[in-house]
């Protein structure tokens, strides 16, 4: 792995150390993600059967998109509507990928290999706070999350028929708790707090009026506005 020279001149450490540090950082996320994906497996099985939810977790690997698409399908929506919801919920990856791009060196294939494991928690954890990212750390944080996500779906599909309502277990509260923890670490300083406040306000105002996923994407406008403030 260290043959890839991305991050080799990383001032924070050599890649394999950063990778391992990322994996350690990712472990609690992995456990949280496991719990969330158990609930995905439980919720998806009645509609999708036992195999499709697992395949989806392997290849889509996105809580927001998978839950979003599932919600549309469960409500009787079309495949097109489910796809639109999933894509909108993942549109933030376009912004996150653009943010990550300058920190990725090397050939296209290696840049792609670092970008594919990108998920919210890894992206936030790998942010150095100056607009650059630690690519090896990012991949490390994603490893336990991917394992947890796929394994959790398998477990959910298996135990689902015996479990009852996952919301009775409070599993839906895992999401806000998870994002609150990430936000607390991220939103330091006046401009970031302003971006966070603006983003929350935009999402709150838009949620009743636009399809799911759009309010989160629209919150990016708060980052643009806050970027004009003095640091």
């Amino acid at each position: 792995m260290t043959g890839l020279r991305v991050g080799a001149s990383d001032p924070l450490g050599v890649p394999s150390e950063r990778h391992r540090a990322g994996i350690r950082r990712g472990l609690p996320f992995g456990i949280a993600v496991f719990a969330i994906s158990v609930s995905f497996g439980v919720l998806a099985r009645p509609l999708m059967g036992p195999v499709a939810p697992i395949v989806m977790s392997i290849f889509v690997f996105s809580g927001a998109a998978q839950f979003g698409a599932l919600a549309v399908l469960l409500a009787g929506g079309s495949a097109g509507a489910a796809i639109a919801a999933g894509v909108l919920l993942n549109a933030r990856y376009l912004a996150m990928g653009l943010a990550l791009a300058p920190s990725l060196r090397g050939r296209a294939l290696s840049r792609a290999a670092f970008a594919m494991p990108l998920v919210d928690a890894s992206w936030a954890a790998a942010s150095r706070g100056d607009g650059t990212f630690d690519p090896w750390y990012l991949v490390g944080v994603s490893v336990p999350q991917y394992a947890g996500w796929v394994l959790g779906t398998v477990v959910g599909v298996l135990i689902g028929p015996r479990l009852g309502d996952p919301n009775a277990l409070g599993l839906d509260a895992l999401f806000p708790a998870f994002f609150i923890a990430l936000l607390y670490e991220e939103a330091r300083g006046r401009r970031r707090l302003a971006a966070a406040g603006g983003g929350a306000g935009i999402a709150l105002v838009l949620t009743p009026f636009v399809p799911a996923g759009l309010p989160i994407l629209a919150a990016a406008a708060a980052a643009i506005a806050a970027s004009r403030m003095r640091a």
Partner: protein
Amino acid sequence: MTSVWVVIAVLALATAGLKLAGPLAFGGRPMNPKALNVVELLASALLAALVVVETFGKGRSLVLDARVLGAAFAAVAVWRRAPMIVVVLGAAAVTAIVRLLS
């Protein structure tokens, strides 16, 4: 059932496309400072939006339910520097207990 597989295939490809577009088009090139300025603030804005939507959102409506107390527990736990696993599982436990009692 076919439509389920179509959704899975398209979402897998679209998600990969969204993740890869930036790094494949702009990898390794420094971004202009103005853009970087915005990018640096994106995580705060999007995470705050996710918190709001996941705490109060139910489809297209805003609701106050047991999740709010779970999220409140999470906020306090984070502030008190509790480990992530305590934050998330505690929030689920609080939410479950509130639902059980109400």
